[in-house]
């Protein structure tokens, strides 16, 4: 029985046990929706009252219309949302898989090779300090305006958090567990696969979470710098056409995409880290 139901039952009992639906505390989700409704009403009201010009801030209605228009067009139409969303999504997913795989693989290699980390550390720190978005124009120059350059940018931007967190995870030695494996005459590789890697998973997932957020940013910035299609390109087109309502609609689509992606990673995380208490899986690790 949830707390909410319990509260309802309790108050029902105080009322003399009459079978009356008691509405006391609402679920937080309902309040969130009410908040959104209130916010949108405030927005619409402010726009009308203060007579804000259309090209500065669109009304809720305009955004809704633009959103509908974008989604209602056929998937292949260049002025619809579907084509551009598909391109951006492809960039995000491909780049994410590539970047995270390389980051994790390098993390494994470095942690298993004694001395390598010390040698590579200054370079990792140096590259990490360069804002990846600053590298975007060069990558577009090298790899062109197509999908590949954006995938590369997303891969680059997701590579570092996963590398850093997986290294942190492998280095967070649990001496006890290692001693246990040693007492069983385990090899270095066995110690890695049976203890070090599973112990590092919470850290690795912290990196994957961060990378998921960065991936969306990377794709959009890459498209800003140079692309033929994608939500970032659409955003620029709508901005230059002064269709701010349309821009807002694209932003809504983008945030939904980001939310869905993040949600997916979290769901995988909960599944893989089934053994951790759920509060801990959501905790991000400060580096």
């Amino acid at each position, binding site marked *: 029985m949830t707390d909410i139901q319990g509260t309802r039952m309790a108050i029902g009992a105080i009322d003399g046990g009459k079978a009356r639906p008691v509405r006391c505390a609402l679920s937080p989700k309902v309040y969130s929706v009410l908040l959104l409704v209130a916010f949108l009403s405030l927005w619409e009201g402010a726009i009308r009252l203060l007579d804000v010009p259309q090209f500065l801030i669109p009304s809720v209605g305009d955004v809704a219309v633009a959103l509908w228009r974008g989604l209602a067009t056929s998937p292949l139409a260049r002025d619809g949302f579907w084509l551009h969303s598909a391109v951006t999504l492809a960039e995000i997913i491909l780049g994410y898989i590539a970047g995270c795989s390389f980051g994790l693989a390098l993390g494994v290699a470095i942690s298993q090779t004694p001395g390598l980390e010390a040698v590579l550390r200054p370079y990792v720190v140096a590259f990490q300090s360069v804002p990846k978005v600053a590298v975007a124009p060069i990558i577009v120059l090298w790899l062109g305006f197509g999908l590949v350059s954006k995938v590369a940018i997303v891969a680059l931007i997701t590579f570092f958090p996963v590398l850093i967190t997986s290294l942190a995870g492998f280095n967070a030695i649990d001496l006890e567990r290692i001693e246990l494996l040693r007492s069983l*005459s385990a090899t270095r590789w066995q110690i890695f696969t049976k203890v070090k890697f599973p112990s590092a998973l919470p850290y690795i997932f912290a990196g994957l979470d961060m990378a998921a957020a960065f991936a969306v940013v990377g794709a959009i910035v890459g498209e800003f710098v140079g692309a033929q299609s994608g939500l970032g390109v659409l955003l620029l087109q709508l901005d230059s056409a002064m269709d701010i309502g349309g821009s807002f609609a694209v932003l809504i689509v983008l945030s939904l995409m980001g939310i869905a992606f993040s949600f997916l990673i979290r769901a995988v995380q909960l599944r893989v880290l089934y053994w951790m208490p759920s509060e801990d899986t959501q905790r991000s690790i400060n580096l």
Partner: protein
Amino acid sequence: MDNAADFIAIRGLSKIFGEGSTGEVVALKNVNGTIRAGDFVSVVGPSGCGKSTLLRILAGLIDASSGNVSMGGQAIHGTRRDIGVVFQNSILLPWRTIIDNVMLPAEVLGLERKAARHRAYDLLAMVGLAGFEDKLPSQLSGGMQQRASIARALLHDPRILLMDEPFGALDAMTREQMNLELQRIWSESGKTIVLITHSIPEAVFLGNMVFVMTPRPGRLERTVAIELPRPRTMASMADPEFVARAQEIRALFNAAGALH
């Protein structure tokens, strides 16, 4: 001289940490002892007497600075497959079920899986955890986790079980319970057990021999034979022989200035 009955022979064992530096610690000095097959040896002493160091040398986890340890006539060089170790914390891997945790030695040592799994089930039943095989460690109490770690230490059927204050993290009542359980496991399996503790009553209750170790430097002060009949119960602790042995051990610590 080592004869056939000497199972573990410890000769002139010394261990110095940080040798030559200013922080040099003489953890063990010239320890000599003999453990026969099937013995239950309690090693008792206060902090700093080197008992954990001794156990780690027996387990092959660290090397001695001088002297040697031999098992069945063979000198120890590193970890061995015929030793099982139980640590103070159960160190169960939290992402594995209890049965998979107990199976860990089989995986590492490459034992035949089906037979090992069968044995794992039997061991869990023996330590009183039947029905908990598919639970996660977080779902078990401290005492149950430690029992699981004992089952794990026995999976590869080691001749010798080394236990480093295995019940130290448990509450007093569970501890008494576990002492009875351990006595039962020892009599049923017939293994040689070396148990480290800082509880004199626990040492006398469990062991048929008690190694009394004193600190600074860590050394084996005396070996005390416990000739109480088995199986011992909580009532045995009131037996005059029990009290006498415990007093004898306590007196040794007092004489060495180890107790205040």
